[in-house]
């Protein structure tokens, strides 16, 4: 009896394996997959991709391992897939920063994202916010602009280094409002917030997830948010365009990229898996917690065009303010 159950069970197992190979042709995947994340472990981006990798592991039934290759604002990890085999076993989980923001400042970056990579999917995005200390004199975006006009170069804004999303947000504001708020570079969100709380900088560009613990206890105040409309979780925060600065529209995007030249069947397998994973409750709830708006687009041509547009747009901005090299 036991033997019978066992044989039925193993038959079922065989069947699922067989089934598996019909979903994912050519036996893909039949070994473990590496997802390179060009950011340090523990940050928001890393956590998001780790949760996605967990779900992909269930979907593909092979381990999907996250490999952190850190450095150079993400360029180090991103360029490492240039030399990877286009077989679907090495992919990149990244923000748009090393794909378009950094190359628009630094022309020596050894790739052109739209040309050299294949986009499996744009999976999520995140809006940026302008935040100040609660006990600061700035009650609104207008207060900041007025003060910046009165005292040029006096105000400082903490952002990540030149070419980061938050840096471009500040430059867009400087340009749109014709002010000169000095940018002060920090290594990451945590360090920026420490300095903001300590009163060493006047303001910062951040995101809702990062400041929520401090806005809740009234130590930080959010003045405005980028993007088309107000955010559902924080309906009281006005958008930059409502306040007359529609040019301030930096948006962080999150993508899964692969080396160019993937076989069609493997592309299909990946896109199917991504679609299922991004709808899974684990990923959606993580997205909420970490303040990512999940918004999957798997049309590679469209995403490629988006990358191209973004690169052109920010290259122009970088050239305008004289930091492109």
């Amino acid at each position, binding site marked *: 009896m036991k033997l019978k159950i066992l044989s039925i069970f193993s038959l079922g197992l065989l069947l699922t394996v067989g089934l598996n190979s019909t979903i994912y042709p050519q036996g893909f995947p039949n070994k473990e997959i590496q997802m390179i994340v060009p950011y*340090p472990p*523990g940050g928001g981006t*890393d*956590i998001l991709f780790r949760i996605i990798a967990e779900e992909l592991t269930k979907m593909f039934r092979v381990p999907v391992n996250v490999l952190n290759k850190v*450095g*150079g604002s993400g360029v180090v990890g991103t360029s490492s897939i240039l030399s990877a085999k286009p077989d679907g076993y090495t992919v990149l989980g990244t923000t748009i920063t090393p794909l378009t923001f*950094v190359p628009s400042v630094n022309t020596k970056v050894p790739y052109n994202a739209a040309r050299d990579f294949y986009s499996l999917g744009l999976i999520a995005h995140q809006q940026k916010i302008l935040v100040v200390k609660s006990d600061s004199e700035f009650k609104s975006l207008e207060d900041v602009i007025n003060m910046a006009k009165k005292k040029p170069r006096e105000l400082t804004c903490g952002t990540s280094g030149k070419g980061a999303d938050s840096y471009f947000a500040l430059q867009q504001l400087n340009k749109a409002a014709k002010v000169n708020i000095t940018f002060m570079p920090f290594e990451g969100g945590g360090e920026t917030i420490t300095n903001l709380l300590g009163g060493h900088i006047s303001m910062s560009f951040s995101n809702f997830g990062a400041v929520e613990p401090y806005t809740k206890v009234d130590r930080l105040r959010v003045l405005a948010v980028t993007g088309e409309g107000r955010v559902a979780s924080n309906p009281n925060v006005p958008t930059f365009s409502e306040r007359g600065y529609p040019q301030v529209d930096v948006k962080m995007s999150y993508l899964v990229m692969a080396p160019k030249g993937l076989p069609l069947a493997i592309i299909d397998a990946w896109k199917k898996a991504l679609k299922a994973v991004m709808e899974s409750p684990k990923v959606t709830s993580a997205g909420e*917690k970490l303040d990512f708006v999940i918004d999957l687009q798997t049309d590679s041509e469209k995403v490629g065009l988006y990358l191209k547009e973004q690169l052109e747009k920010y290259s122009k901005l970088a050239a305008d303010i004289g930091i492109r090299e």
Partner: protein
Amino acid sequence: MEAFSNLIIGFSAAIQPVNLFYCFLGVFLGTLVGVLPGLGPAAALSLLLPTTFYIPPFSGIVMLCGVLYGAQYGGSTTSILVNIPGEPGSAVTCLDGYAMAREGRAGPALGIAAFGSFIAGTISLFGLIFLAPVLSEAALRFGPPEYFALMTSGLMIVIYLARGSMVKAMMVAAFGLILGSIGIDPVTGRTRFIYGIVPLMSGVNLAVVVIGLFGVSEVLLNVEKRLKQEIYTTKIKGLLPTLQDWKDSISPIIRSSFLGFFMAIIPGVSVTIPTFVSYTLQKKISKHPEKFGTGLIEGVAAPEAANNAAQCGTLVPVFSLGIPTGATTAILLGALIIYGLNPGPSFIKESPQFFWGVIASMYLGNAMLLMLNLPLIGIWVKMLKIPYAILFSLILLFCLVGSYSINNSVSDIFIMTAFGFVGYLLKKFNYEQVPLVLALVVGPMMERALRRSMIMSKGSFFIFFQRPISAVFMVLALVMIISPFLFKKRLGEELISEGKG
């Protein structure tokens, strides 16, 4: 006392069998991670992070914290036995720890490292209980000018107290600062000194340099003088610290515990810098500073106590402000966020059971570590009886694997090897390695702090003297440079002549 009643609630959570199990698993894995060079706590935490999604949040955090302080326990083991720091935080331990091992006193060195860590863990636990919320607010007052002044004075103190020539120490420190500037310019975003080599964009990794500098160079030196092998095999004097060892170590342990804990509360300082400072301070106030580096037990006790206390100190801003102090605590914060807890200023009030439970578990974990590590000493010491030919091949192997595993990068292996030769040359020509390591640690931080300060002050250097905290540190640094010119003598002068002789 509210803190105590809370702590009792915490212990009742930590003592649950399932939590005890995860605590043990954490400290056990941590010890392992500490012993293996290269595989640091940050890498280990990121590997473990996904697995904790399947266990209760509290158990998960207890385990991750266990890895964190367990690694500090284990990191000293290889420093003492084979001169490879398991973690950068144990680099200083190499100096006297390895010298002790060569004298056949590896047992007492390992013993005092374990006891020192335990005592430091206990002291900083009380620090966490009473001071966590207050201290983290004070740490916020450290802005860019304060950081720059703090780092500068730290570097100057280490140069001042270097063995041998102070000029040589300065040269080595300058070399470290230059190395620290490789990579991306923090303000302009330009790449510097990378010569088209993309992996260099992130700079040279500290752990990679340290492994080469201490581990590989030691192998090279020993290949040269292989006759001395009998030192290891013949005399192994005692396994535990003697009464005299205790007398020598107890006040350094207590002092370094306080120092490590308080320094680490400042975000960015992390674990490595306090070990340097505590070692140097110990040397400064010692009656026989010239003997440091020749196998003095205080030289092991001080940095080992400091790194454990510092590991606890780094948790203060994490739990009371939700601010990460370094790579490892960033991962811990990430885990808290995934669990749906909101680390931040209101965290301790909102989840007292969680916070106090983690604190209680840390105490239990420290006790477990002591029990785990003491019996192991006998086994570790026997490792030194392995014949040279095999031992050194193994050391090289660990150096290679260790340096690769940090960032999965082949170029790190080349960098590690290159620094093996650099370390060899430094030792050959009597240059100290310590200022190089410290300069590499603080260099990038110092540069960023300097340039941010310059942005704040619009280019005026007076900013460092206008703010009280930074003014104190700057004056201290200046005294260090100027005093040898005024008095034509500095501390440990005897040793300089000794070095020449």
